[in-house]
């Protein structure tokens, strides 16, 4: 029970919801409780999990980023087209190109914010359009189907770690997507909890001016944070394409709010200074759990929005209530 005490109330609340929901669904349809469901959950949520780590870091630092889907597809799709044009079949190069583009675009975001001293929301809202438009002009948005996809994408799409063969001769297994996901989560955890940069990120989110006076170079920190988020977006871009073994570059745009919702559900404070990796993971799991159980429950897709909205609301209430209790304990009365 030590671990249970360690996580905050919002996360406990999410754990309970997830458990109850799983029980309800499996009572409705026993087919739900299979390894296939779990493997598919991991595979489908991989991209969102990686993006959510970037959003979490930026949100803790008191900012918000809505340009990451544009950055991700810019990186992933451009990398794909370069690989197609030059016949590159190295997975390493594919990721490297995508990550490089991600870093550049992320750093541009940070530089604009630093130079103009404007809200990150407004800057990233505009850069999202600029990036996507730029990609459309430079690279185009032509769909690429499974037959034209370079070998490394196909390999990434079908490679599995633990496999079993089903009755039909197909292989069911844990997608290799789990590797980049675990790497990104661990790296983010290390960054936030074990480095001075992490302390700076939390300090910035609590009070930017105080962090600056305490000796943190907030402008440099911001460049680092957005660059890091760009790295994650770059990784996600490649995973996203491999995920469907084809790409329609338009379909990722507009998904930013669901990722942000996952992070907020996980208990991160939108005003900055607070956020937990475990909570964010729970938020992502919940989102995909709702998404992936509609058929088992026999519900239409609008129910997912409904569930998500309700949980988001409760989660925000819970987080702010906890904060108020804590403030009172410390004799801070702001209302």
């Amino acid at each position, binding site marked *: 029970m030590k671990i249970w005490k360690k996580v905050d109330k919002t996360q406990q609340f999410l754990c309970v919801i997830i458990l109850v929901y799983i029980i309800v669904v499996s009572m409705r349809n026993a087919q739900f409780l299979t390894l296939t469901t779990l493997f598919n959950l991991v595979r489908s949520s991989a991209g969102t999990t990686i993006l959510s780590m970037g959003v979490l870091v930026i949100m803790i630092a008191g900012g918000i980023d809505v340009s990451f889907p544009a950055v991700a597809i810019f990186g992933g799709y451009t990398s794909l087209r370069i690989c197609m044009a030059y016949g590159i079949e190295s997975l390493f190069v594919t990721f490297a190109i995508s990550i490089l583009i991600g870093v550049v675009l992320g750093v541009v975001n940070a530089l604009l914010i630093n130079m103009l001293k404007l809200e990150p929301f407004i800057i990233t809202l505009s850069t999202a359009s*600029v990036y996507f438009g730029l990609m*459309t002009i430079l690279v185009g948005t032509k769909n690429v*189907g*499974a037959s034209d996809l370079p070998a490394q994408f196909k390999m990434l799409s079908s490679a599995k770690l633990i496999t079993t063969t089903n009755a039909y001769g197909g292989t069911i297994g844990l997608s290799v997507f789990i590797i980049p996901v675990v790497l990104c989560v661990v790296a983010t955890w290390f960054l936030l909890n074990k480095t001075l940069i992490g302390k700076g990120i939390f300090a910035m989110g609590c009070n930017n001016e105080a962090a600056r006076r305490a000796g943190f170079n907030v402008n440099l920190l911001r460049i680092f944070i957005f660059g890091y988020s760009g790295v994650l977006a770059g990784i996600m871009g490649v995973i996203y394409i491999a995920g*469907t073994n084809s790409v*329609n570059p338009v379909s990722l745009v507009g998904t930013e709010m669901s990722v942000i919702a996952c992070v907020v559900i996980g208990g991160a404070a939108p005003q900055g200074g607070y956020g937990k990796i475990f909570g964010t993971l729970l938020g992502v799991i919940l989102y995909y759990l709702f998404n992936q159980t509609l*058929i088992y429950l026999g519900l239409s897709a609008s129910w997912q929005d409904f569930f998500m909205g309700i949980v988001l609301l409760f989660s925000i209430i819970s987080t702010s209530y906890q904060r108020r209790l804590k403030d009172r304990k410390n004799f801070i009365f702001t209302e």
Partner: protein
Amino acid sequence: MKHKKVLAVLLTVAMAASVAACGGGGSDTNASSDAAENTTDAQADTTGAGDAADASSDTTTDATGGKDAEFTIALCAKTEGIAWFDDMRTGVDEFNADHADVYAYEINPEGSDAAKQNAMLEDLISQGVDAICCVPVDAQAVAATLQKARDAGIVVVTHEASDILGSVDYDLEAFDNDYFGTLYGQYLAEAMGGEGQYYAAVGGLGMTTHMQWFNSMVNYLKENHPNMELVNPDGTPGEDDNNEQTAYDLAVQAIAAYPELKGLVDCAASSNGMALALEEQGRTDIKLVGLATPSQGGAYIKSGTQYRGLCWRPADAGYTACEIAYKILKGEEITEETSFTKEGYETITIDGNLISGNAPLVFTPENVDDYPF
């Protein structure tokens, strides 16, 4: 302060460059060279977006494709940069080449943006083109603008917009949508041997044509193949948002939730997501029929994972839309006897001002490589 000046200059240049790129959409060399000229003007004049917009409208007014054309026909489709509307452009260009007295071209907004499409249509009206062909992003959203064009004496022909017939001269459909829906049913029944459970999805419950296809398929199967059972709860189709990942997830769930499942239908062009799920799980016993384009779904149709892909040829639809507008401009009356050039449109049916061809395209492993979209 220095930074801000640099930034202002950068923004201006970026804006001018993007305007040039939009103008270039006319896809003939004259139009793009005009656009280049206008770009230099726009760069010299840094007053901003208003002038830039003017520059873009100049671009298309001046451009008559180097022809002494009597009529100008502009086709404004949903979005730039995707294979579907690129193929449509080849049809429009072909029409342009076939007719000496017409200058026909295609321009599209970026990113399926209804507001941008409206702005482009407004531009076309003020330029005074003779006819506008439109494939609306959102039919209701452009209805008023199209009506305005007609009030200005411009001929308006739409494609895939049978729900705003009141605001257009004619709407062109590649086929009768109810008939197209029965095709899903026919091929699914053929593949499943006329019995078993099937699960169906559409892009979204609000998508008019998808729902029409779905309903007509279900009715067809009910009447002709009573041993086939739709497993969808309440008979409501699943929604995949035209997104391959969502289609994949739906298929994985449906396969697991209904162990007896033998058929899958996706009325959205993202059916290759479902095919991927079938391929991974080795479920050759489950038959998939879906809307598909060769570039997206070709691999699975060729390998047999997807039994049939249904579609229509965008180039032919674009060509025929221009042809309808052209005939009206020439003062010809359009009746059921009117014959159009492209295959599938030689004979048409007319219901009010809704023109339907008979041009469904069915992809099989043998023919799927023949199409470039």
